[in-house]
Structure formats: C-alpha cells, structure tokens
C-alpha cells in the first residue's frame, strides 16, 4: 500500500494514471505483516480446539489406562481340605445350621499353612500369609459345601481370589525393584507369590463379580451391580415423573397458554431453573422430601424425584422446541376438519413432535444419570452392600459409587473407580447414541 499512502487522503486517486501499471497489484511488506497476523490468529483458534481435543484424550486415556485392569482378577488355586473336624465337629448327621456357621476361613488358612510351613511360626508372618488371599474367601467355600455337603472330608483344588494388594501386584502396578519399605508388599509376600506362580497356580479370570456384586470394603469383592440397579430404579422414577409432567407442561405452554403475565413468569422461571446449581436441588430434596414429607433417606424414590425436578426444565425446553417445529399448517388443516384443539395436539402435533421430545428426554436422562451432588444431600452416599430391591430401599447410584470409591484409600480402588467410570461413560454414550440416531432417523425438513 505504499502507493495509497503517498496520496494525500481525500484528494482522490481516481485521476487517470498515465501509466496503467502505476499501481501494480503486488504484495507490499505491510501486507505480509498483516497476513502473518492472520495466520497466527487462525493457528491460535486451531490450537484451542486441539487443546480441548487433547484434554479429552488425556482424560479418557488416563481413565482407561487406570481402569481396564479391573475387568479381570487374579486368583490362586489352593488345595483345600474340607476337614470334618472343622465343619462338623460333633460328628453325626450334617446339620445345615452348623455348616452355615462353620469357620471356613480356617480351611483356607490351614491350606496356606500347609503350603508354606516356614511362615507358620511367626504371628506377623502368619497374618501376612493369610493376607495373600481375599478375606472373603470363606464365602466361596461355604456355598460349595452348602450346595454339596458330600465334599466334607474330601480334599479339593479351589480357585480363590487373591487379596487386593496381591492382585495389584500381579497386575504389575507395584514395582518389585523398589526398596521394600516403599512398596505395599513385602519381599516375603513376593516370594510366596513367585512360588505359587512358578507352579502355574496363579491365573487371571474375567472379573464377573465386578458386575454382579454390590459394594464392599474389600476392593476385590466390590462390584457395581448394586449401584447400577440403584441408578436404574432412580432413573425410572425420574422418567415416570418428569416425562409426563414435562411434556404436558410443554404442550400447555406451546399450544394452549394465553400470552399473559403468568405464562411469561413460567417461561422465565423454567429458563432460570435450568441454570440453578444441581446441589440446590439436593437441598430442596433434603428440606422438602426428607424433612417435611418424611420420605426415607437414601431411597431411589427421593433421588428420582429430585432428579426429576432437575431434568424437568430440560425436557420442557426440548419438547417446546419440538412442538414449535411442527408447522402451523398442520394444526390449521386439522382444525379445519373440525377437530378440537386437544385432538389436534394429541392426534397430529404430538406424534410429529415425539422424536424431538424423546431426544430431549434421553439427553435429560443422560444428565440425570451422571448427576452426583444432589444425591449426596439426600443420603444416597451411604455404604450399601445389599442390592436395592425397591424404590424405598437404601441405594446408591453409579456416579456416587464412583465418588465413594474415589474417596477410599486402598490402591486397588483406583482401578475399580476408573472401571466404574468406564461403565458409566458406556451407558452415557449408549444413551446419546440413541438420541442421535433418533434425531437422524426422524429428522424432518418442512
């Protein structure tokens, strides 16, 4: 632009150039600077998007890399003597009650002592030895015996879970080259482990219990099934409450409501409610559902109600825009045929808007599934071993289970937490995929 600048501004440069090439269209140095700035700015934008993507990768990567190993569990084959002295000390016919109460842990311990007689002398060594396997190993034996009392007096090879520390060691999370004081397993334990391993008696198996059991203080016993059922029960309540109310509210506001102060207020109110922090809904649930109405604490019923109030704005807003997208010509056509306004809505408008409404509902449910904070307020954070059977049983949900496990000190809970997150994300992906499919499949251009 050297040329342009040489013109006194405002005097006009339109005078005919004597030489047509007087102002050649070439790139000036000033322009190069401007283009450098352009490139930098563009790059900055791209870098921002890339940063977001990179963070997502790191986040997912760190969870998968920490959690994938939770899907299997290391076990050890032990030779168990189902000794009659231990199980049926009084002799005579086998009494089920005695069998139920027998000390099965002793059988495991005896087996370990036979395996490593050297350790049997020292108390603390003995405790370490017993600690090789899960403290809940007796449950396996008990159910074996209860199922087949004929086992009494025989010797069997039984597969028993390693304890969480040994499992963690087997998975390679503990470096054996560290000084002994810096790692959670001692040289002695490593020696035992290596011995069993060299005999081929330690092997990994798919961790079925993770999907079929409730919570436990022992990481190797802890599963997500209880939380999963809790989530399902809670979401059922949420859906049953928020879907009908949300759709009806949307239908009223979009199709029937007169334009007045009240409907304006409702509208503003819904928009604001959508942005209220979720924890405030938890406080509402605590004050109203628990303290005022006396509903049970920790129950999916209350959790579902709280989440329903929270999801309601999402469903109403999505349903309203789905209803809005139905062209007025369809309403006019139906009205012209003599249908009542309600018939127009139920016969024509709602069916056409339904894909959009369902999409919004699924997205709302996905949000509810991932919600944690309000449920902490109403006590769904308790340690619950039993699988909830009804809407009023104490229960927890997947994200809260993640929170509980993340708070646990045991190293082995880290992989459990990550695995639970993977399951949670799996469900969220599934729900969103359904929503996307629904939208794609039924997308309509008017």
């Amino acid at each position, binding site marked *: 632009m050297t040329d342009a600048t040489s013109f006194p501004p405002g005097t006009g440069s339109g005078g005919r150039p004597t030489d047509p090439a007087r102002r050649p269209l070439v790139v000036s140095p000033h322009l190069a600077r401007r283009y450098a700035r352009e490139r930098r700015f563009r790059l900055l934008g791209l870098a921002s*998007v890339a940063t977001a993507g990179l963070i997502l990768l790191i986040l997912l990567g760190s969870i998968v890399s920490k959690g994938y190993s939770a899907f299997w569990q290391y076990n050890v084959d032990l030779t168990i003597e189902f000794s009659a002295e231990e199980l049926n000390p009084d002799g005579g016919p086998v009494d089920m009650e005695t069998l139920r109460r027998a000390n099965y842990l002793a059988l495991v311990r005896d087996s370990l002592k036979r395996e490593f007689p050297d350790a049997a002398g020292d108390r603390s060594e003995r405790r370490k030895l017993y600690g090789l396997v899960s403290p809940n190993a007796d449950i396996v034996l008990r159910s074996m015996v209860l199922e087949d009392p004929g086992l009494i007096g025989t010797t069997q090879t039984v597969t028993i879970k390693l304890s969480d520390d040994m499992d963690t060691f087997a998975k390679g999370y503990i470096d054996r080259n560290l000084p002994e004081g810096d790692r959670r397993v001692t040289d002695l334990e490593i020696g035992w482990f290596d011995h069993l391993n060299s005999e081929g008696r330690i092997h990994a198996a798919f961790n079925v219990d993770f999907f079929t059991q409730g919570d436990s203080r022992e990481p190797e016993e802890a599963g997500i099934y209880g939380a999963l059922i809790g989530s399902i029960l809670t979401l059922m309540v949420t859906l049953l409450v928020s879907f009908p109310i949300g759709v009806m*509210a949307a239908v009223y506001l979009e199709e029937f409501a007169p334009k007045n102060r009240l409907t304006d207020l409702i509208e503003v109110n819904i928009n604001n409610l959508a942005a209220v*922090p979720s924890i405030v809904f938890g406080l509402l649930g605590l004050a*109203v559902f628990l303290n005022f109405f006396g509903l049970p604490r920790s129950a999916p019923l209350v959790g579902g109600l709280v989440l329903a109030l929270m999801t309601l704005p999402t469903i109403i807003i999505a349903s309203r825009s789905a209803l809005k997208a139905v062209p007025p010509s369809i309403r006019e056509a139906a009205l012209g045929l003599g249908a009542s306004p309600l018939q127009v809505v139920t016969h024509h408008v709602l069916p056409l808007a339904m894909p959009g409404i369902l999409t919004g509902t699924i997205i709302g449910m996905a949000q509810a599934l991932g919600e944690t904070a309000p449920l902490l307020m109403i006590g769904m954070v308790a340690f619950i071993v039993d699988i909830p059977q009804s809407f009023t049983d104490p229960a927890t949900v997947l994200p809260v289970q993640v929170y509980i496990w993340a708070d646990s000190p045991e190293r082995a809970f*880290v992989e459990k937490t990550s695995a639970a997150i993977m399951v949670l994300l799996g469900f969220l992906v599934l729900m969103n995929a359904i929503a996307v499919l629904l939208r794609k499949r039924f997308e309509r251009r008017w």
Partner: protein
Amino acid sequence: MQTFIVVLALLGFAAVGYTMGRARSIMTAGGTPKGLHSLPSYYGAYTAMWIGLPSLLLLAAWLIVQPQIVDGLVMGGLPSAMTEGLSSSEYGLLLNDIRNVATGNISSRGDDPAITAAAARLSGLHDTGFILMIVAAFGIGAGGLAVARSRISPTLRARNTVEKVINVILIVSSLIAILTTVGIVLSLLFESFLFFTHVPFYEFVFGLNWSPQTALRADQVGSSGAFGAIPLFVGTLLITFIAMMVAAPIGLLSAIYMAEYADPRFRAFAKPMLEVLAGIPTVVYGFFAALTVAPAFRNAGESIGLDVSSESALAAGVVMGIMIIPFVSSLSDDVINAVPQSLRDGSYGLGATKSETIRSVVVPAALPGIVGALLLAISRAIGETMIVVMAAGLAANLTVNPLEAVTTVTVQIVTLLVGDQEFDSAKTLSAFALGLVLFFITLALNVIALSVVRKYREKYD
C-alpha cells in the same frame, strides 16, 4: 414397591372403567354410537377419570398423612418416662431407633422391651394403614365408577368435560416449575432463618473465620463454632477465576475458529468432540482432578522448587475450566453465528483480512452475547460441586494463592450435610444459609445473562 403396585392396580381399574364407560355409552345410545354427543372413547375417558383422579389423590394424601399419625400413635404408646422432656432431636433419634428395629435393622436400643414393643406396634399400624388405604382407594374408585355410569347418557357432553379436566392437568403440570422454585426459595429461607437465630447475619456475611465444628457437649471448649463465610466466598471466587482463565480463552477461540474458519468436515468432527467433553459427568472430572491433575501440578511445582498443595485451588480450577470449555464455546458459537453476514461483508469490502474482521467487527458486535455467555459460565462454575468436593480442600484458608488449598461454598454444603447430622444444629443449618447465598448469586447471574443474551438476539433478528 407395594405402593407402586397399588398405583398400577388403580390405573388398571381406571382402564377397566374406560372400557365399561365406552360400552355403557353405546348401550344408552341404543347400540350404535350415532346418537352420542361425543365419541364413545370420550365416555370411556370420562369414566376412567372419575375412577382414577379421586382414588389417586386420596392415595397421595394418605401416604403423606399416615406416617405422621402412625408415629404419633407409636410415640404416644411409649411409657411416658421415655418421652417426657425430650428435645426434638432426641425425639427424632428415638423414633428412628424404633423404625430401625421395625425394619429388622440393628439398633443401639434394640434390646429395650419398650422399644421392641413400640416397633411391633409400628409395623402393625403400618400394615393396617396400608390395608385401609387400599380399601379406601378402591372404594372411592368404585364410587367414581358408579357416578360416571349413572351420568352417562347420549346427551352428556363427555368430550367437553374430559378436555376441561385435561386442560386443568396441563396447567398444573406447567405450574410445577414455579412450585419447584417456590419450594427452593421457601425451604432455603426457612432453614436459613433458623440459622440466623443461632448466628448473627453480619457474622456470617463478614466473618473471616469458618470452622463449623460444633461440639457434642455444650460445655466443650470452642463449642460455638465459627461461621464467617468470607473464606468460602474468596475460595469460590478464586477457583471460579482460575476456571474462567482456562475456559474463556480456549472456549472463545474454539468458538471463533469453528464459526469463522473451520470447514464443514472439521466442524462435523470437532463439534461432537466438544459435546463429549460437555457430557462427561462432573464426578469424572473430579476424579481426574484429584488423581491425575493435582499430583501432576504438585510434581511440576516440586521440580521447580514451588510448594504446591495436593489440594491446590489451581488443580480444581483448571479442571473446572476444562469442564466449562464446551459450555463457553457452544454458547459463543451461537452468539457469533447470530452476527449478520452484512457486517462481515462490510469489513471484507474494505479490504480487511479475516482475522481483522473477526477482531474489529465480529467480536465487538457479538460482545454483549459473549458477555452473557461468560456470565452463565461463571454461574456454572460457582455452583459446580463434585470437582471441588473431590479436588479442593476442606480447610477454610483465607488466601488468594492458587497453589494453596482453599474451600468453597459447595464443598462446605456437602461436608456439612453428608454423614450424620443433628437436626436444627447451627452446623446443619449453615449449609442452608450457604445454599441460599449460592442460589441467589447464581440466580442473579443467570437473570442478567439471559436478559443480556435475549436483548442481543433481538437486535439482530
């Protein structure tokens, strides 16, 4: 669960009523629907409403009232020595124990014969009440059926009645949203009011010291606790500030890139990616912050000789910022797309480059909308709970040093209310006072932001 089955049964009853009403209407019209005022299905719906509405309403009322009555009867039946002079929280504990025994759980007072008896009484009353409730609900449903049957005639305007009732139901549904807000405001105000009878308002708002650990015994030292919330407000603002320092530039620049530069193929890939980031539950971010980011910052700090707390505000703030990036970018994307093309054309027509156009024309034009988006994001950050609960500290340090641990309003609400709580203690109630502050601050931000954004949209519509 049992109640749920009763509800299903009542709905089934109403469905039966539907077919009965239908059939009845055709019968009264002489076997053909021709002479009827409305379609037969409306007579069916009319009958179903007469059955379902009163019986379900009764059920709801019963479920709310029965526990109060049963509790009163059970407590009244206890030896007066046990209930005399109990404070309301002790009364609640006693009742809780009885409930626990009744449901077969272990209780500290489980072996007291009076308690065992009361528990038996409780279960007995509970069962009787349940049976009475079923009888009453079905009785009233049957009554409704009878009324509907007697009223059905060819001249009954069934459609109009049904539609009127449905209209009322629709209105009630849309009022639930308002009811929720009212419920939030009232419950927060009520509990906060109780709190301010324990702790003066000015101490809460201006106090510099927060340590809500009230003692178990009244004579214990420091039993009063300190409820100065300034450290919480400062901690919340610090973390929010850090979050916005991350989210605002990355979110805005991403939005600009997506709206102005990216070709459709890139957008088709990057938009869902940001949506995934938005769809990740906050508890996952919390885990990520506590387990990956905080240790990483701590180690990084150590390597350059800085002492970074393992619960630093920085880690929580940065992860919260990451969580908010997609929020900022999608809101700003909308806002930027609303800037009319004619403004861009005007700038290009003068020979501006793309970035010059964006910086001097598009962004200034979109500024009100962007400010609105950022306000919404700030409100989101202030109210966010799980990340800070898992990654920020509990100790209420009054500091603005991002490398130290701070605590926030939401963290304190959770800590105060999770676990065993005593009713009506200042400690429990303070959580509601914090909730009230949280609610009104986020509400104010949202109202401002939404109105700014709305005005902005109207300008370019």
